[in-house]
C-alpha cells in the first residue's frame, strides 16, 4: 500500500512571495503523482501531474512540481503567489500497475495575505 504525507497543514504567505508545499510518499512500486487544488466550497481540480519523462512538471497558472525519486518527494512551488491562489492543495499518488485509485495526503491550506 502507498501513503502520502504533506508536511505542512497550513502555509501563510504574503502576496508576490514564493511558496513551497512539501509532499512525500511511500510506495513499494512505481507511482504516478498528482497535485489537486480545492478552492473554497468547491470540488478538487487537477493542477498538474507527473507520469514519466522530465521530472519537472508545470501548470498553466505558474505552479511547478519536481519529482525526486531518491527522496520520494513531489514538492509544489510557485515563485510569486496571488490572492487568488488561496486554497487547499492536495498531493496524491496512484500505483502504475494497480488501477486508478488515488491515495491523498492530508492537504495544505495556503492563505495568501495582501
Amino acid at each position, binding site marked *: 500500500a502507498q501513503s*502520502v504525507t*504533506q508536511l505542512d*497543514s497550513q502555509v501563510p504567505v504574503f502576496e508576490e512571495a514564493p511558496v513551497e508545499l512539501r509532499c512525500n510518499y511511500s510506495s513499494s512500486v512505481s*507511482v*504516478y503523482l*498528482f497535485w489537486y487544488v480545492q478552492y473554497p*466550497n*468547491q*470540488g*478538487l*481540480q*487537477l493542477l498538474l*501531474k507527473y*507520469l514519466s519523462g522530465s521530472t519537472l512538471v508545470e501548470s498553466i497558472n505558474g505552479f511547478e512540481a519536481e519529482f525526486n525519486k531518491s527522496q520520494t518527494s513531489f514538492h509544489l512551488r510557485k515563485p510569486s503567489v496571488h490572492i487568488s491562489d488561496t486554497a487547499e492543495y*492536495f498531493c496524491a499518488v*496512484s*500505483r*502504475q*500497475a*494497480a*488501477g*486508478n*485509485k*488515488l*491515495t*491523498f*495526503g*492530508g*492537504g495544505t491550506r495556503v492563505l495568501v495575505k495582501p
Partner: protein
Amino acid sequence: NAGVTQTPKFRILKIGQSMTLQCAQDMNHNYMYWYRQDPGMGLKLIYYSVGAGITDKGEVPNGYNVSRSTTEDFPLRLELAAPSQTSVYFCASSSSLQGGYGYTFGSGTRLTVV
C-alpha cells in the same frame, strides 16, 4: 456543462436516519469513485466502480452501500447515520483505469449527523 453532478449540496441528518447521496456524470466515464473528506485527513476512498454492475470497497466502506445500475449514476447510501459520518462527500469519475489519468470531481455534499 459536462462534468460530475452531486445532490444535495448540504444535508442534516438525525442519528439513525438514512439517505442517498446522488452522483451523475455525463462524460461516459466507466470509472467512478466516492471519497469522504475530513479536516486534516485528506480524502479517503469509500467505494468505487469500474462499470455498470461492478462495485468494490475502498479504504473506509463501513456504514455505506453503493450501486451502479447505469454508466451515468453512482449513488451512495447511508444506512443508520452516525455522527462519525459527518463529513464532506465527493464523487469523482475517470475515463480510464490506468493510473495516470486524473479524476473529475463533483462539488461535494456536506453532511452533518446530529
